[in-house]
């Protein structure tokens, strides 16, 4: 049970003068229940990579398996397997099209062939997950709502298909800080509640640090790092930098404080925990003098 890529290579516009290798020899496995962050600068191949996870792109070389089903080999089984992977694109609100919020979110479940009763249950559940009140908005036009609400509707539409692997490409782009926090706390809750895998493509290192249990760093179409976020951010800063990825601000602040002589111990990476650790370190220093 996993999404597995073996020696996957992808070349855009193969056989034309614009030919460009976007992915080179990728080997990786996404297991059920993982929360994976995928980072890398623009053009590093992140989006190309995740579009292989549900067969939107066919590899130029190598193969992709979802739960041991090879997407290239077995047409019918592959079709079923792809349904296990839900994809929320960048700016998904641009893809809303139905007349009501309900109809838009119901589109996915209806395509799977669920009964009307089951569809309504799915829609209600999905709306609850993303913090939309069913009675207040289900019958309104999605186009009358704010950008943040439209984003939630689009995400709910994918969640309603109950994918075992949920891919989100920059889900917080363009939202204000509160909107961003809300979306991420809902994704986190969803991950905990369903136990399904979440794959998050993002530029925002702070978010990755708070959420992901595993981090994949892409550069020039290759996976250059693959480890726990804390490990990467503390121990592989040079490689991150050469991949064009920033270390989260909170880690660089901790380093500055340490190199200034404040002996901060291990702490969680948020402002409050850092403050507690600094107080602790100052107290120890006073005691030692």
């Amino acid at each position, binding site marked *: 049970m996993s999404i597995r890529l073996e020696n996957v290579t992808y070349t855009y516009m193969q056989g034309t003068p614009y030919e460009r290798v976007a992915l080179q020899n990728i080997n990786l496995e996404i297991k059920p229940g993982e929360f994976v962050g995928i980072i890398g600068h623009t053009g590093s191949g992140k989006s190309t990579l995740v579009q292989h996870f549900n067969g939107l792109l066919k590899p130029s070389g190598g193969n992709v398996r979802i739960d041991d089903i090879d997407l290239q080999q077995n047409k019918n089984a592959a079709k079923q397997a792809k349904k296990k992977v839900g994809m929320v694109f960048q700016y998904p609100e641009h893809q809303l099209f139905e007349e009501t919020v309900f109809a838009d979110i119901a589109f996915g479940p209806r395509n799977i062939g669920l009964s009307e009763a089951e569809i309504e249950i799915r829609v209600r559940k999905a709306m609850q997950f993303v913090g939309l009140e069913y009675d207040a908005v289900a019958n309104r036009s999605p186009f009358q709502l704010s950008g*943040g609400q439209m984003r939630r509707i689009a995400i709910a539409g994918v969640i309603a298909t109950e994918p075992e692997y949920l891919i989100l490409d920059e889900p917080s782009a*363009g*939202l*204000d*800080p509160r909107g961003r926090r809300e979306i991420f706390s809902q994704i986190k809750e969803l991950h905990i509640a369903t136990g399904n895998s979440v794959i998050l493509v993002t530029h925002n290192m702070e978010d990755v640090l708070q959420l992901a249990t595993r981090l994949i760093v892409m550069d020039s179409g290759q996976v250059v790092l693959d480890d726990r976020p804390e490990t990467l951010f503390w121990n592989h800063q040079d490689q991150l930098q050469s991949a064009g990825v920033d270390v989260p601000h909170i880690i660089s602040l901790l380093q500055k404080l340490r190199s200034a002589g404040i002996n901060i111990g291990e702490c969680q990476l948020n402002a409050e925990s850092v*403050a507690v650790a600094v107080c602790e370190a100052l107290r120890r220093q006073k005691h030692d003098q």
Partner: protein
Amino acid sequence: MGEIIKTEQLCYEYRGAEEQRVRALSDINLSIQAGEFVAIIGTNGSGKSTLAKHFNALLLPTSGNCYVNSFNTCDEKHLWVIRQDVGMVFQNPDNQIVATIVEEDVAFGPENLGIAPMEIAKRVEEALQIVGMTDYRQHAPHLLSGGQKQRVAIAGALAMHSRCLVLDEPTAMLDPRGRKEVLQTVKKINKEEGITIIYITHDMEEALHADKVIVMNQGTIVQEGSPACVFSQVSFLKSLGLDVPLAADVAQELRNRGIKLPQQIITDEELVVALCP
């Protein structure tokens, strides 16, 4: 020098979904000096972009006034001068590129002003040089990175000889490298070319670079001052749903725990110095 943008009791209303009036801005009074770097922060829907669109007469006040270089934006006579003086850069780099070659895109504005070709060529060259895109002058804009596209958009305004640039979340769709490129370019044209900058952002670390920060909430200005003065009000900003710079956040948490720190700490360096004098 002097005042480049001024608003007096500016209000803006629009018709909402069920024909009811929605007030997007109320009683905005502000004054922006030529050469200033002003950041505007606020949540989605707080009126930032609506206000910014008044600065080059894309929107006109429902009541009150907006002046650009002392010209009232409601006076149609001055529309061309105002639009030339105040350039705009929007969030989505793909929505503001019109030509198929970088230098033609930069030339689009001055061409529309009816400027002589020799002069246009000179301006395009200067503008591309300032934003560091000279090497890409013959490139197709759609193949550039987001940060490069935004720099081309900035060059377009420079080639118009705009004296003021309004940037509406210009880095929201960019990766960290693109964000840095754009912010550095903006700082450069402010410092070296003396161009007035009005910079709308959700990124508080970016707003730290401004001379002045304006905080908007529900269509009004709720706070205005230097970054140090605005960002040291951690709990107030958080109550509006905004972030604060990390150092300010940590400093506030330390104060809450009885550590004595100066009031205005907003950068990592200030925090380090305060803790290790």
